[in-house]
């Protein structure tokens, strides 16, 4: 059993089935529980650890549905160790099942996911309202009428608690039958305030059906807002669960953390799962995201939004994750986040390419583009490039790096380039950008040495100068600064280690620069 400090007294806040069989109940004082079962282990209630585990479950459940909310559990003085929410909130996730097709299949998938995380005896129920879904999850009645259910407002719950046995069949409440389904359940299902529960019991109201049969105005007049809230729940009207208005035109993924998240680590963890779900949705619809809206629900009730735009439309989760992670790193949030919503704000049809049977090495171009996108998001937009030769006099003008757009992964066998087949090897130029100023020592026979990177290089032979004016033939198009750029006197120098260096003397003051070397 788990024990927490409530009003200065240790109380049981969670217990397993064995403890409950021996009479231990939530809210019981620790001494009382130990009197019933002295050999039970009392573990301290670790909110942080539970929150981490809950985030793990939330992220995993995103694989089944794009909208997942953890009901959470709070222990405080007011509730005497019990949950605040009127649904015994421990280990309950609200999952939007609308529009996902076969709900029995979804429920089984949820149970499988929970079991895969080590929560073994998980249960799931599906209904129009959260309270009915909760009743279907934990209730004792079996109702497996599943045929023909396509209601768009369905909610589902998956419980990862230990109250059921392995292999519990998911229960599906038929559309529009929530109130009827809830009627035989006891009022204790709602976990009402103790005073209200006692009052209702003294009036002979035992089941939800009896409460629902009362007139709403009379209930409000006699029991106030808590009574009216209970009355609404008894009639199957429940606003819990993923509550953001749906926009089926855009792929949306939502996750609620169940509590405020203050550090980036859990946020990134959920974000990764959410992006996997969003990417799958986009991929299924044949779309790629040009812009993603990353919205964080804040603890104070506000929302912080940021648009994330990958350099190219993509549905690949890893590429999208890198962009979102970079956005989060530079985002100063005024308050902790309690929920996350991702939506593909702008989408374009995904481009596809059929695999080439005859290519010895063919990979999905989308995956290759996604890899490039990851590198670009981390290393800069110009990090992935293709070399291109240009016309120019200065070495730096004779080529350029261009951003390639063709992600074909098999060769172009019809292309012809120069190289081994038609010419001898020639040394390759490497350029410093920008050229590095160097000190030069002149001797009787010209260049004697130059100092670069805190080291003197003795020159054993050199050639030059070659005077080059930067794009002198296009001066009409150049800015004034380029107009006045002086011509450069280029030298090629060989140093003692055999390396060939490219130096020039570039300005009016006679400053020397090292532009590169032949390698």
């Amino acid at each position, binding site marked *: 059993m788990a024990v927490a400090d409530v009003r200065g007294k240790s109380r049981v806040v969670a217990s397993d089935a064995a403890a409950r069989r021996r009479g231990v109940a939530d809210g019981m004082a620790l001494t009382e529980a130990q009197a019933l079962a002295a050999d039970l282990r009392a573990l301290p209630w670790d909110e942080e650890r539970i929150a981490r585990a809950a985030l793990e479950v939330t992220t995993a459940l995103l694989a089944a549905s794009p909208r997942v909310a953890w009901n959470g559990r709070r222990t405080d003085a007011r509730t005497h160790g019990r949950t605040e929410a009127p649904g015994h909130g421990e280990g309950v996730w609200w999952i939007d099942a609308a529009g996902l097709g076969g709900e029995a299949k979804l429920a089984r998938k949820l149970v499988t996911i929970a079991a895969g995380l080590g929560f073994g005896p998980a249960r799931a129920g599906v209904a129009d309202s959260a309270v009915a879904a909760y009743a279907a999850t934990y209730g004792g009645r079996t109702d497996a009428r599943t045929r023909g259910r396509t209601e768009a407002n369905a909610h589902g719950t998956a419980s990862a608690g230990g109250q059921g046995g392995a292999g519990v069949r998911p229960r599906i409440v038929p559309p529009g039958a929530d109130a009827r389904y809830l009627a035989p359940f006891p009022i204790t299902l709602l976990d009402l305030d103790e005073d209200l529960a006692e009052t209702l019991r003294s009036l002979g109201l035992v089941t939800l059906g009896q409460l629902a049969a009362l007139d709403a105005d009379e209930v409000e007049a006699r029991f106030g807002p808590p009574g009216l809230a209970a009355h609404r729940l008894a009639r199957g009207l429940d606003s819990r669960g993923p509550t953001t208005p749906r926009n089926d035109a855009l792929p949306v993924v939502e996750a609620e953390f169940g509590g405020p998240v203050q550090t980036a680590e859990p946020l990134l963890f959920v974000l990764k799962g959410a992006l996997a779900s969003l990417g799958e949705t986009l991929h299924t619809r044949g779309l790629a995201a040009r812009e993603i809206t990353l919205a964080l629900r804040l603890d104070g009730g506000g929302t912080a939004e940021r648009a994330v735009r990958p350099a190219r439309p993509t549905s690949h989760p890893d590429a999208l994750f890198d962009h979102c992670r970079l956005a989060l790193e530079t985002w100063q949030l005024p308050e902790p986040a309690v929920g996350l919503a991702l939506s593909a704000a702008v989408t374009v049809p995904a481009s596809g390419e059929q695999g080439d049977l005859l290519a010895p090495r063919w990979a999905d171009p989308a995956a290759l583009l996604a890899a490039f996108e990851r590198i670009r998001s981390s*290393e800069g937009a110009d990090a992935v490039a293709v070399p291109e030769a240009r016309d120019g006099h200065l070495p730096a003008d004779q080529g350029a790096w261009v951003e390639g757009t063709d992600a074909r992964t098999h060769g172009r066998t019809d292309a012809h380039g120069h*190289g081994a087949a038609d010419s001898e090897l020639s040394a390759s130029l490497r350029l410093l950008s920008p050229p590095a100023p160097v000190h030069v020592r002149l001797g009787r026979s010209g260049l004697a040495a130059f100092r670069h990177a805190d080291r003197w290089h003795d020159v054993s032979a*050199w050639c030059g100068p070659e005077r080059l004016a930067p794009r002198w033939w296009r001066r009409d198009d150049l800015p004034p600064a380029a107009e006045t750029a002086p011509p450069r006197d280029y030298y090629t120098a060989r140093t003692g280690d055999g390396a060939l260096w490219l130096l020039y003397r570039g300005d009016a003051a006679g400053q020397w620069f090292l532009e590169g070397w032949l390698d």
Partner: protein
Amino acid sequence: MGAAALAQPAAGGRPHLELAFPERLRRLVPAVRRGLVFGIPALDAALPHGVPRGQITALDAPLGSGGTTLLLALAEATLRADEGVALVDAERSLAPQAAAHLAALGPFWVVRPKANENAWWCADVLLRTGAFGLVIVDRVPAPARRVAVRLQRLAHDKDTALVIREDQMRGGTDARTHGRTDMPPNYGASVRLSVGASDSGFVPALSGWGGAWPAARRLRVTTLKSGAPRAAEVVVGIPLPDRLRPHWAVRDRRAQARADRRPERKTRR
């Protein structure tokens, strides 16, 4: 015409079917899968099994020794074999004109990370795509052991040849060499190539004067795999522009000529 064609009857008089595969089909059925070649006969002879796929090959080539030339030759031969090549230019110093001809041969991508140490992450991402037959990481310090192990596994999984050219000026980052500077760092490379220039690449123009004519260089490449090292000599030309005259007295007067023409041009307008 289909891929199969009836050939002439065999010597025994019995006709047989000979498959006339198109060139690309033939490549799919290699008898022995060989490593990558440089396309340089002397060097390929010294490395009979080629640059191994699924393994790390280390290239010890000091700055200016011709290492880039060899890497680009390897990239070109790989592209001609219809396989993709990715080059991580960790130093961001490769001149685009030096590799521009490769882009026309096939999928050739150059990744230029912001910082030298990010090259390993880039190589990791590239290897995971499985789209490349050759991934080159150029001018980086020798990788840490755990990085090398991860990359080697990726290369093995994707059957990709990973070539690492170390930046020896930056040196290793840990105790792989046990403090010995004469010993190359060992991070699991299955083949190691060492490059050194055996010839100057310059011919003196005038005796007693430093000016010289550029000339071809001779590189000595030593391959070390298993057994005794093998050496190969490779000749590399110096691609100086034709207009470059290796004499101090020859000046480029074009800038001056342009300035002279300018008033005349205005008059015409």
